[in-house]
């Protein structure tokens, strides 16, 4: 079943922060970790701008690490502000998720409210 990109868009920064909280990563490695977690259709072009914004907002920081298989990699890791932000985001997600689940799983009520047929109040009464 195709995933609605808009659904993922709102939570992707939180997922990025969560993965970086577990282990620092460079950009492409982070993409592969998201893909391995089940987001197979996520593209590097979606993740890099988010990393850029999170770094600009001070939620993550980076350091260059030399690599034996190519150029130095820019590893991203969470800052203290990022940890706070992640904690709030996760709490917000759980609240929203519980609400959405409650609405979706609420059984349909037996008595449905039916709209009354419109009455013409402008007509003169006999």
């Amino acid at each position: 079943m195709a995933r609605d990109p808009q659904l993922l868009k709102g939570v992707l920064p939180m997922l990025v922060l969560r993965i970086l909280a577990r282990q620092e990563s460079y950009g492409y490695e982070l993409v592969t970790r998201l893909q391995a977690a089940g987001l197979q259709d996520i593209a590097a072009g979606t993740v890099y701008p988010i990393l850029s914004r999170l770094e600009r907002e001070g939620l993550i920081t980076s350091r260059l690490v030399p690599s034996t298989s190519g150029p130095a990699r820019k590893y991203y890791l969470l800052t203290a502000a990022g940890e706070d932000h992640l904690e709030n985001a996760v709490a917000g997600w759980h609240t929203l998720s519980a609400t959405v689940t409650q609405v979706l799983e609420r059984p349909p009520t037996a008595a449905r409210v039916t709209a009354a047929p419109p009455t013409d109040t402008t007509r003169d009464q006999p």
Partner: protein
Amino acid sequence: MTTPLERRQDRVRREWYLLRFDMAMQGYPSAARKALHDELRAEIEAATADVGPSRALPQLGSPRGLADAYYAELGRPCPRPLDGAVVAALVGFAIALSWLSYALGSIDTLGVQGGGTAELSFLAVELTTRGGPGGMGLESSFSWPSLMLLMTVLAGAFALGSRSWRALPTFHPRPHEEHP
């Protein structure tokens, strides 16, 4: 094992991608744009080392789409100076073409009428045209008002094309600073 030719082709593809990305990022704040360019180059090289060039670039999507994603994360619209320059150049070209057409038309008319000299004014530029059996000639003189008019038109075209009003400062709260 890649051959030198394949390596060169990969390098050309990467540079072409980065060039198109830079063009699409023309309106991004310049200091950050340079940093993003270097960052993206490093990420492409890292991804190429991991999975090869055939998968590294397609993962990024189109340069325009990637630039749009960076703009979206910036959270505010940016002016597009390159677009403005293209629009101003097109308007300038159209003015020059119409000016030339007007001058050649007047020379042709003089030739049909048996020759003579005409002093004309077109878009605030003074024109003196001569035409006749002996040949033809064209003189023009730019005055300060005509130059100012031309510059104003070109500046207006640039301002519209580049969406320069986007450079005006506005307050955009960051998402995590907004009140719930």
